[in-house]
């Protein structure tokens, strides 16, 4: 209860630190989400509708990668971006870009694996017709993505949820630097390690509220569109 009151206080006093952190969290996660969706959705779709040796294994791999520990992703990205690493010359370590990269690596498999399942179901229905019409490759992928758009929002929201809640990877590559790479989750982790559990919970409540708003927005748009258009 204290945490709720504290969360409320933080929000209504428009605490500037809070809003800086909140805004960075949103920015990083949304950019990562867009990139991951642009890669993951076509990938998942393509794997659902093409047949080639090794396809089963790719799907299996995607599913397994959903269980990739964030810390490991963080480490890999860290080693790549570290000044002595292969991409060190980009100078991205401890910047928001590094956090975006880590999140992309983390959520692309999730979006791809989930959309793969959605599209596979639709494919059962469409495959004969598409085959008959000679629709293959890019045109088929796009058609499936368009026709499954409402179901795919859930995959995207799952990816967003993972991105916004993620801490293990971003703290390694971002460094949780105040005013630079401190996001909601790393702030929560910091407050927890300081023993400020109430403040940590308050921040968690704020983050959850944010997550609720983003989800409400997406689902709202989806319902609105679904109602006005096609079943």
């Amino acid at each position, binding site marked *: 209860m204290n945490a709720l009151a504290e969360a409320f206080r933080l929000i209504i006093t428009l605490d500037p630190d809070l809003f800086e952190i909140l805004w960075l969290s949103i920015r990083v996660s949304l950019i990562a989400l867009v990139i991951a969706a642009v890669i993951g959705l076509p990938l998942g779709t393509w794997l659902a509708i093409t047949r080639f040796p090794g396809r089963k294994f790719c799907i299996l791999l995607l599913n397994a990668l959903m269980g990739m520990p964030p810390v490991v992703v963080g480490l890999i990205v860290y080693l790549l971006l570290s000044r002595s690493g292969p991409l060190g010359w980009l100078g991205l370590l401890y910047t928001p870009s590094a956090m975006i990269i880590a999140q992309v690596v983390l959520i692309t498999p999730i979006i791809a694996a989930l959309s793969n399942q959605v599209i596979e179901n639709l494919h059962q*229905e*469409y495959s*004969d*017709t598409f*085959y*008959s*019409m*000679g*629709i293959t490759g890019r045109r088929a992928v796009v*058609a499936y993505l*368009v*026709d499954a758009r409402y179901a795919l929002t859930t995959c995207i929201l799952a990816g967003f949820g993972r991105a916004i809640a993620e801490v293990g990877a971003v703290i390694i590559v971002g460094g949780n630097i105040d005013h630079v790479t401190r996001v909601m989750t790393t702030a929560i982790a910091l407050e927890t390690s300081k023993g400020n559990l109430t403040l940590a919970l308050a921040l968690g409540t704020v983050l959850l509220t944010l997550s609720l708003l983003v989800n409400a927005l997406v689902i709202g748009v989806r319902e609105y569109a679904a109602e006005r*258009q*096609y*079943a």
Partner: protein
Amino acid sequence: MPSSIMPIRICDLRLTKGERAVLGGVDLTIDKSGITVIMGPNGAGKTLLLRCLHGLIRPDQGQITLGHLRVADSRDQQAMVFQQPVLLRRTALQNLAFAAPVIAKSRPQRLIEALESVHLADRAHQPARMLSGGEQQRLALARALLGKPALLLLDEATASLDPASVLVIESLVKAQSAQGTKVILVSHDQGQARRLADDVVFMSDGQVAEQSPANQFFASPRTPVAKAYLAGEILL
């Protein structure tokens, strides 16, 4: 070049599902243009045969050639209308636009004309999945004809249409056939078969039982099984 896919030769086509031989060695040559109607009891394998022809199913054994082409090479000259049409989750017009070859796309008027030909112009902007059963079937036919196929396969395409729609589709199919398109049509409707068929293939139990010119088939079928079918007598 519609003639290039003729004659259609099917040789010892076999397909087993589970332990049942659902196609048990189909031998069939279709060398005349015009409309061929395939008849036969439920489960005889008519749909499976059509699907093999279209390349949707790879048979366990046997050979299919269309002219000098194999199935895989003839696919862009074929079009098929299924027993249960699958339409995209879009409007009627968008369904056509999606299927249209690139040339047709640059001329949206072509699409409207196609809708008109199946009397669906006033449903152009309605979600295709909200159309009535008959309307969906007509839309599927319009979509199949967009590509001007040399071979048109119809699987009970008029099964749930009203008499007027049936006549509309029949006349569309006849017109298409007159332009040189080979039509193979599965139907249980004897009236329709009489109206359309140039020749009839009768299937039973995964095999071709009889192949005859239409007038001869309906006048006096050569096989007892076809005779019983026409009389509605086959024991299931």
